[in-house]
């Protein structure tokens, strides 16, 4: 036991000696969360547009001013020539061009409908769809104000549940926790174990009185502690800087996080057991763990939209389940009775990874 404690001490000395990496490991989550939280939104804001106004009437001017006055849209330019439309869209200066019909002002009294043509840069489909939705709303409100007596459809008041301000940070923080835990636990563990192999130190460790499992646990514990500190950091930042709610139980959240942590650590051990150079371990961890955690876990992209094979694959990405658990506890405030399925899957995956890595771990290095 005493040897084991010395071994862990040695590991800590190794970690603390590499100050550059240590700083990165602590700063990375904080930087990421601040960047994600403040900078990344999927809302539409300050989208530039151009107008080609054929009617040049008061009504059209009022409408343009109304659109320009919103936070969503900013008038970039009046076009005088229809030939400029294509070029201004090509040059990325505006996202859409409104072409207002000559008859637009003859809207009064409503004999005919006023026509507006919207030319959207649909190269990003979602922005295009969003722009159209917002614009439609503005125009509907406009026509209600201009013609208050007419009978129109009032399609209004949308209620946003769970996340009324559409804050992306609510989505990012659970994802980020999963991501950071995977990065530090799985990624760093796999590298540190492979390093011993590559440098030939593993032989020395294996002939030492330490048992193989002690070596692995000793290697893993420092990173587990680092990850726990990082979780605390993310939670504190999320709650106090971004007002992330914590509706459910903190204890449950921490227990689930420890479960996920074990899972990531066992994945790290697994990777190290079949790679022999750090370069390969890093690349495998990057491609096999970090990218799926980021892309296929529902962190960045909705799983429902993926083709079926990827949807099935996302089910074996541990982060998928962890993120569902986190969102459930933090945003919806539900307890274990709603989350037992995900917890069970996570636990089974962990046991599975541990069993394989025990089987794969060779006490002898040369086969």
């Amino acid at each position, binding site marked *: 036991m005493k040897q084991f404690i010395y071994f862990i001490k040695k590991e800590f000395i190794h970690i603390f000696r590499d100050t550059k990496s240590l700083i990165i490991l602590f700063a990375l989550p904080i930087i990421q969360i601040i960047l994600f939280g403040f900078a990344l939104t999927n809302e539409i804001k300050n989208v530039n547009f151009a107008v080609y106004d054929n009617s040049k009437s008061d009504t059209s001017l009022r409408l343009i001013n109304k659109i320009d006055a919103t936070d969503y849209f900013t008038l970039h330019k009046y076009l005088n020539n229809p030939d400029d439309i294509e070029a201004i869209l090509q040059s990325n200066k505006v996202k859409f061009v409104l072409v207002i019909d000559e008859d637009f002002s003859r809207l009064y009294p409503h004999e005919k409908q006023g026509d507006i043509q919207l030319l959207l840069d649909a190269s990003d489909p979602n922005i295009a769809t969003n722009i159209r939705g917002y614009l439609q709303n503005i125009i509907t409100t406009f026509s209600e104000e201009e013609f208050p007596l007419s009978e129109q459809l009032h399609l209004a008041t949308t209620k946003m549940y769970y996340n009324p301000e559409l804050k992306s940070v609510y989505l990012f923080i659970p994802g980020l926790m999963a991501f950071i835990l995977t990065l530090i636990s799985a990624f760093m563990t796999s590298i540190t174990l492979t390093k011993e192999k590559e440098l030939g130190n593993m032989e020395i460790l294996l002939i030492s009185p330490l048992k193989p499992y002690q070596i692995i646990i000793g290697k893993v514990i420092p990173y587990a502690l680092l990850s726990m500190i990082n979780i605390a950091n993310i939670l504190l930042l999320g709650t106090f800087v971004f007002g992330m709610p914590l509706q459910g139980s903190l204890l449950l959240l921490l227990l689930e996080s420890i479960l996920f942590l074990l899972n990531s650590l066992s994945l790290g051990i697994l990777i190290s057991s079949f790679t022999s150079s750090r370069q390969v371990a890093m690349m495998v961890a990057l491609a096999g763990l970090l990218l799926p955690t980021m892309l296929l876990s529902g962190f960045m992209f909705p799983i429902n939209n993926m083709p079926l094979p990827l949807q099935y694959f996302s089910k074996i990405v541990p982060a998928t389940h962890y993120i569902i658990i986190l969102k459930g506890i933090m945003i*919806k405030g539900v307890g274990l009775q709603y989350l037992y399925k995900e917890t069970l899957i996570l636990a089974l995956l962990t046991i599975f990874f541990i069993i394989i890595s025990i089987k794969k771990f060779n006490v002898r290095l040369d086969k």
Partner: protein
Amino acid sequence: MRILFILIIKELKQIFRNKGMLPIIFVMPILQLLILANAANYEIKNVNIAILDLGKNDFIPEISAQLNANNYFTLKGVKYDKASAISLLDRGEVDAIIAFQHNFSAQRMPTTPQVQLIINTIDGASSGIVLSYISGFIEQYFAQNSAMKPLINLEYTNKFNSKLDYKTVMVPGILVILVSLIGVFLTAMNIAREKEIGTIDQLNVSPITKLQFIGGKLFPMLIIGLGELFFGIILGRVLYGIPFAGNPLTVITFAIVFLFVMLSFGLLISTKADSQQQAMLIAYVFLVVFIMFSGLFTSIESMPIWANRISQAIPITHFITVMRSVMLKATPLHLLYRELLILLGTGGLLFTVATLSYKKSE
């Protein structure tokens, strides 16, 4: 010149000899392109919705049928009291509820809202689009089936990507990311590895000059990067029918300049890092920030001004803009000179700093 040539051959030999890395250089990008192109998809499909009818309306069966016929929605049920509809939302069975507040056949409609949409917005990203789709659907339904036509008719044309295909916009961006990943990681780790195993000392005492050394490291990566980019473009075209509307020469010009920027950046990292692990972590930190701010996943316009500035300083941002513009919009080179100047400037700066920080004698 001969020395440079020999160095390039040596580098290529080393790259192709390393059997562990080869699949990572050549197979991983393809896999990533396949996975990312399919996963990076905010397209709204099969949104589960419920109808809540508080006014005993007779058009419910009809609107239900139309909802189900629509590719975007799957109707999960019709409820007649608010509590049971909300519980569907709570249990995650539906993502949105369309609530009809009144009886629509009544003589005089109240001016309060007649239709209410209740939307689960945990996934802030997609809920805005769900909202757009549902309100578009309802407006269209009532425009066709009742006297309540909108007074101002908004006709729209989706230019450059008329089918609103998400892959069309993602693939050019993903290619940029893949090329950057390979370029920065490989360069940074390559030189850090020479440091770690000590071969850099041998190179340092040899008669080759600093520029030859750097050139010998960068050229092979440039070739690999360009090769992967064009292979990716072809793959995207064959698999997903991604158009290539513009001039390939524009893309080649930009690709060379862009790779020059990213490789210089990798070089700079490698001069600062002591080990491969450090190089990897440093490269990783920067690339994550670069990718997040590049406008690939979220729009740059919506960012706060300071974040917008950061994203303008990131080379990936400009190359993604260029790739999208040239491939989808056929934007000619003269409309992109600003991006070209920025990339050239960044590249020159990074290359100078990297060359200065690499010292032959330490």
